[in-house]
């Protein structure tokens, strides 16, 4: 195959560490060769708390991936999440001295201008993502390079986070003598494979519910308008069950997976769930309505927080979203789509990686959306052409810096 390229996506999640090895194909698609995986230890709410343990887990996951795919992993694309990440939209403007054709340097200058905002001192820029160009007040100019004007403006979605926490992730990988191609916001990675271009243009909210965090991203008119991270996820549901029903964490987790449902307990079938004795646990009967109440309240709250965050970040933004796509390991929870529909009042779809080929059971599982998305993101960025559309062009801030450092 000509133009063959291998991309490796690494996601250090709260529940598991996954490494996706994918191959770029001629037709812009990616084909998954395999996945390496280990249960995660030393990660809480998406952030590394025990460096040594995490490093060991990452090593295992990488070795597992190398074994399964016969690919020697040298460089990886890394997803990053955590409640320290924050985002906002900002417009940069550049007055050209005289009316003339816009040059590529002008596009760079306008981006630099957009980043001239005060972010908290411990923070650093993670992404500066282009939303739209405006030339002389002409809104949404698709390709400003061909137009003439005296004033170039550009809207950006800017993501920033605490430098030291981002560095922790990088240090952990570098200590394994693995190079880092770039650091990518988790939700941005997932969106690459979960949302279609039509959905991005039409207005979509993607929610990736994982073990420790819930990452979300809003696309309107093909551009990212909002992104956020909530340090809440499946672990919280498990913990709620453990506290509410007085069960050990492991039992609570099992109960959530086997019997859990996020649906409104009003429509519960009721009755009891019998938990059997085992050497470390005295069996008991659990009231199903109580279990469903615990889960329903938590899931509903997560969606309500997201809704309120979107509403407060831009007036009328919620009205421009036409659909909600839910992915991530926790999206497998029964009844979750109905709760989301109740809260957002728009069509909700459970989704997973699409437009990829290869081992189907991998990309059909929503818990790999982020890691697969990383490889798609890598493909789009390295192809060095406008991926999907001009509006989707990603401009690297911090990422390219690390790239240089790691080589």
């Amino acid at each position, binding site marked *: 195959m000509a133009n063959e390229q291998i991309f490796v996506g690494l996601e250090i999640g709260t529940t598991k560490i996954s490494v996706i090895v994918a191959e770029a194909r001629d037709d812009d698609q990616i084909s998954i060769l395999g996945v390496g995986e280990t249960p995660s230890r030393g990660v809480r709410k998406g952030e590394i708390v025990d460096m040594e343990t995490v490093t060991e887990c990452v090593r295992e996951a990488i070795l597992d991936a190398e074994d399964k795919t016969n690919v020697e992993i040298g460089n990886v694309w890394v997803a990053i999440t955590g409640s320290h990440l*924050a985002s906002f939209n900002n417009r940069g403007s550049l007055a050209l001295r005289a009316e003339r054709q816009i040059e590529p340097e002008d596009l760079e200058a306008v981006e630099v201008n957009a980043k001239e905002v005060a972010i908290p*001192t*411990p923070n650093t820029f993670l992404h500066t993502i282009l939303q739209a160009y405006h030339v002389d007040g002409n809104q949404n100019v698709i390709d400003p390079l061909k137009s003439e004007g005296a004033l170039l403006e550009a809207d950006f979605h800017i993501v920033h986070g605490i430098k030291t926490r981002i560095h922790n992730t990088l240090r952990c990988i570098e200590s394994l003598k693995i190079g880092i191609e770039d650091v990518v916001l988790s939700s941005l990675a997932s969106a690459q494979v979960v949302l279609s271009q039509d959905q991005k243009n039409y207005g979509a909210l993607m929610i990736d519910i994982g073990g420790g965090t819930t990452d979300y991203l809003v696309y309107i008119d093909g551009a990212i308008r909002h992104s956020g991270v909530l340090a*809440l996820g499946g672990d919280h549901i498990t913990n*709620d069950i*453990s506290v509410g*029903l007085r069960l050990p964490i492991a039992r609570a987790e099992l109960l959530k997976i086997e019997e859990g449902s996020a649906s409104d307990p009003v429509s519960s079938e009721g009755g009891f769930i019998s938990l059997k004795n085992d050497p470390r646990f005295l069996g*008991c009967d659990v*009231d199903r309505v109580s279990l469903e109440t615990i889960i329903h309240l938590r899931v509903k709250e997560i969606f309500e927080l997201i809704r309120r965050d979107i509403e407060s970040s831009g007036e009328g933004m919620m009205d421009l979203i036409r659909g909600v796509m839910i992915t991530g390991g926790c999206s497998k929870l029964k009844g979750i789509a109905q709760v989301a529909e109740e809260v957002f009042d728009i069509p909700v779809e459970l989704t997973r990686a699409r437009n990829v080929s290869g081992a189907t059971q991998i990309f059909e599982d929503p818990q790999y959306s982020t890691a697969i998305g990383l490889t798609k993101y890598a493909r789009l960025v390295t192809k060095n052409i406008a991926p999907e559309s001009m509006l989707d062009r990603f401009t690297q801030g911090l990422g390219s810096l690390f790239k240089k450092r790691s080589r």
Partner: protein
Amino acid sequence: MSTSPSRRILVGIGNAGVTVLDLLSVEYPGMTGLLAVNNDPDSLNASIVRDKIEVPEGDPGEGFRVIDDEFGRTVEGSSAVILCGGLGGETGSFLLPALAIRAKSAGLTTMACVGMPFSFEGKHKRDLAERALEKLQEICDAVVVIGNDQLSGGSPSIAAVGEAFVLSDRTLLAALLALTGMISTSGPVKITRADIHHVLGKPGAITHFGFGKAEGSNRLHEALERALKSPLLTLPGKGMALKESSMILLLLRGAKDISFAEVQAVVGKIEQIAGDNCQIKVGVHADGPLGSALELYLLASSGGTVRKPAKPSESNETGEPNSAISPISPISPVSQIGTKLPQPSRGEEISSGHSEGEKGADELFPVQTKPTSKSGKKAAATSKQMQGTLALDTYQRGRFDKSEPTIVEGEDLDIPTFLRKGIKLNPPTRK
């Protein structure tokens, strides 16, 4: 006007100062020794503080002359005066130094707790505030400076303007509580007034302040974590400011059962952060009912010039500062008067502040314990506003007990939703 019997007087000056005292009265109802001073009759009438002095509107210098005597009578007999307000406005910038001189000349320990304006409020305000601060630092025994810009984390572009001011008032309130608590610590572990003067008495110094509140078995750890997150504890480009400080004041307030081990653990942690060269002075107010929330305050400073300590031989003379000072005209350049003020020597500060402090320790916070549990929600809201945390009643956080709390919209979301919403569940039936 009745003179408050308490031994220290908290004076709120200008709109910001009065707002802070109102917040204080709401959260610690029954606290005495509060005095509101303002030239805005509307703000003063709306205030719930009992003792008020209205400054005539117009020229603040003229206004001060009118209230000078009344203020003098009110603070008479107290052991310490803590002035609180925002600098930058005409009222606060003039009245704070003027009242400080008045209190100081009456021989009282005089401290101030002031907020500096946001940079978006303009250069004029900034300049006015800086001049007033300079004077205050010359006059007062200790000044806590809350930099509003630093407080908003240097990102006014993101925070809403209204929120920024609320946060500023809340922080000023916490700093006032910290200072008030520190001057009144008693018992075997205490903070002396000399310590406070050492840390906060340096002209030009940057104040570092952190506050955290938590409950439950892991309360100390959590309270410290929260306190350490304060934006006022970081220096731009240098990281943790405590490393730059030579002395840190640590105040713990809470239930009777604060254990020796807990205090030791928290001091150990701060030592780790600040380094070995830093002295940590600990004060403990452990007289709340069992189960009440633990409040932790950190005060330190960096930079600034050390004031010339008074020579030992002078310490006797400074015993009667009144005789040395002629009645002060508020119109005269405050800085000149300020520099002439005798500086009580440290030893003397200890002895005078001490005996009074020990006796008055309980009176100073007459209701400090009960409201903590009764108005727990309100008090918790303070900590939320300040540090992005909320200490709810002892709820179980389960496996997240020791992890960084997830606080959104002021709620600790690690606590199960059903608990926060107060929904009853059927317990499992054991076989």
